[in-house]
């Protein structure tokens, strides 16, 4: 494939990755920002989103679009409630102590993963996309007849992949509006800035924590429901998103929402481009290298504020 179309294809692939990654990493970032909890089980909430999407889509089972919409509405909610339950039953009882929350969420990771293995099984299962048509993309060149368009071999995307990008953008804007423009968002931000003071003003901090933990997991689940018609639901699928989310959140600055978005786009697109032109392994090496550089030269991340 020539360079131009090749680059366009790589960018499109990268944009889809970035869209899902932005949602997943945003969940991790919010949880850390508000609760100061490093949620190692985040990838498993993502996986649960995909697995539940398969379950819901097959139970509804009429038109693929109906099943998908049902999954998109119900799966994140269920995952959110489950995560809120984890907060109440586990995290609250260890007082959100940083070291102990890491160990507790590692335990949660294994419980969720192995429970899925025991019930859902070890197979990868597909969810049918609500719509999926191949869109061939044109490219231009300066030929003998001057400027002309043509359709290079293999340069294409699918309508569903474009939908994933659009859906992620809409969800992220909604989230941003909710945090900055609503009372619930205000309460969240107040808890983030000073939880003791917020409590003194009558904000039910414990409830806020549960809701935020559920919201974070729900965002990961939404990302997974969007990606599952492209990939497949599989009990070990939470590993990569967890790693990439951490990379994104560290680069963007822990707790910084705009930083998370920027880093997700950076990592997603670079992953797409480097994987296409070189190898996927090099893409991972690059991402890890960026993390190392950020930690050395800007330990708070691109847009993170130092906590005094």
């Amino acid at each position, binding site marked *: *494939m020539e360079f131009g179309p*090749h680059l366009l*294809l*790589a960018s499109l*692939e990268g944009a889809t*990755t970035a869209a899902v990654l932005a949602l997943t990493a945003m969940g991790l970032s919010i949880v850390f920002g508000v609760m100061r909890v490093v949620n190692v089980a985040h990838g498993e909430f993502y996986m649960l989103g995909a697995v539940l999407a398969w379950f819901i889509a097959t139970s509804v089972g009429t038109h*693929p679009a109906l099943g998908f919409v049902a999954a998109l509405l119900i799966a994140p909610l269920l995952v959110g409630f489950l995560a809120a339950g984890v907060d109440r039953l586990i995290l609250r009882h260890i007082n959100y102590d940083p070291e102990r929350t890491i160990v507790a969420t590692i335990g949660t990771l294994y419980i969720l993963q192995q429970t899925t*293995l025991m019930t859902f*099984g*070890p*197979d*990868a299962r*597909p969810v*049918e996309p609500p719509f*999926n048509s*191949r869109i*061939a993309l044109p490219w231009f060149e300066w030929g003998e007849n001057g400027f002309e368009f043509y359709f290079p*071999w*293999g340069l*294409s995307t*699918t309508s569903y992949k474009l939908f994933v990008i659009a859906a992620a953008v809409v969800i992220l804007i909604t989230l941003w509006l909710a945090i900055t423009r609503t009372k619930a968002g205000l309460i969240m931000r107040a808890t983030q800035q000073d939880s003791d003071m917020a409590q003194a003003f009558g904000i039910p901090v414990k409830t806020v924590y549960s809701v935020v933990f559920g919201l974070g997991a729900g965002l990961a689940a939404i990302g997974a429901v969007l990606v599952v018609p*492209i*990939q*497949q639901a*599989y009990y*070990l*699928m939470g590993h*990569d998103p967890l790693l990439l989310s951490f990379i994104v959140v560290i680069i963007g600055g822990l707790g910084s929402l705009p930083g998370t978005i920027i880093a997700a786009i950076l990592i997603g697109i670079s992953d*797409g481009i480097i*994987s*296409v032109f070189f190898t*996927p*392994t090099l893409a991972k090496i690059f991402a890890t290298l960026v993390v190392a550089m950020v930690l050395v030269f800007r330990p708070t991340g691109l847009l993170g504020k130092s906590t005094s």
Partner: protein
Amino acid sequence: MSKLIKPTPTLTRRTLLGTAAAAAATPLLGRYAQAQSSEPIRIGFQVHRTGIGASYGRWYDRTTTAAVKRINDMGGINGRPVEIVAEDDGTDPKRGAEVVEKFATQHNCDIGFGTLFSHVVYGSAPRAGELKLPYFVVSEGHHVASGALNRWTMQPGITDVKSQVQAMAPFVANNLGKKVTMIYPDFAFGHDHRDYFSEAIEKQGGEVVAKIAIPPSETSFTKYFPKIPRDTEVIYHVMIGPAVLTFVKEMGEFFGPSKPEIFGFLDSLEAVDINSPGLEFLEGTYFWEGNPRYAQADQSSHDKMYREAVGVDENGASVSDAKDVSTYSHMFGCWETLNIIKRGMEAADYKGTDDRSNLIEAIEEMSDMPLSDDHPQGAKRFNGKTHQTFGHQYISKVDSGKLVLAHTSSIEDTLYEDEVDYTTQSF
């Protein structure tokens, strides 16, 4: 002496103290000798229950269970019942070696059996050799016949990649095209495909114009396809792992209406319904099959019996769940290997773990095995020197959403020169 012995349960240690030093390697031998007629023959079954090989593992399990039931119904081996001791290896080489060790030292198995994924075989076989445990793999890798393993490791029930691709190359070159791009998983099994198919197609006057290796745990594939050169006439694909359906689907999306000829190993769609949404583009393409998934018009009575025994319908899916598609191209290897083990144990008059080397020698003596209920996939020719079997290969065309047999290769098509003589190695 005791320092040389690995820590084992106290019971074993006590037994050890009471018996002669010679019994050290086989601590429970005494018990066998007392009750040899009723004690079951224990076959350690190394199964990929979890990890990337899980769907194969499920069907290897069902096939093994069915084969053992048939053997026991016919009176067992040397009058003793056969018992399967299954252990999950997580499709992981490190765990594989541990499982082999458990078979030999904890479960007191007579033999180890059933490993599929080639990296797990590579990880486990050396340990089996050290423990002097006969180890029967059902893997397809060229690792056995290449001489890389040891005298205790055999592959008598399934053919290897080198012989398979050698039989495919003439068909690809004569019917589909000479410029081939290969897409394969980036581990031992895929490398066998890469090396031996490249060699075989060059002998047919063709060439491999690009080799695209994909990590077996990959979940997204579109990014690999732009590396396919424009002058490719044939895509040769073989993929494994949980994301094979995504792989094939994204390949279809990449090519759209202007696809080259496509030749795949059915590994790319094992345990996947060929009529899954997004796979319509496969109509008219060709697949290698180890054993035809769809019951063919001229189905043999042996295939019919085997299908029924394992619980597979005429479309290659489970009789109880039409969505649960089998790994029909590979799992017959379990059935046939177990029948070979039975014949080997009978020929060696196998009584207990002391006779393990006699069992290996008895199987090394074997050669031609006709198509029969014991060998429903087809006739086999076992090479005792290389510990590898050779057999017919099948090429099917996707026709109206079914795999229809288009070509059957002869056993001679698959033969190649010996690369090792295991019989010269000492036990």
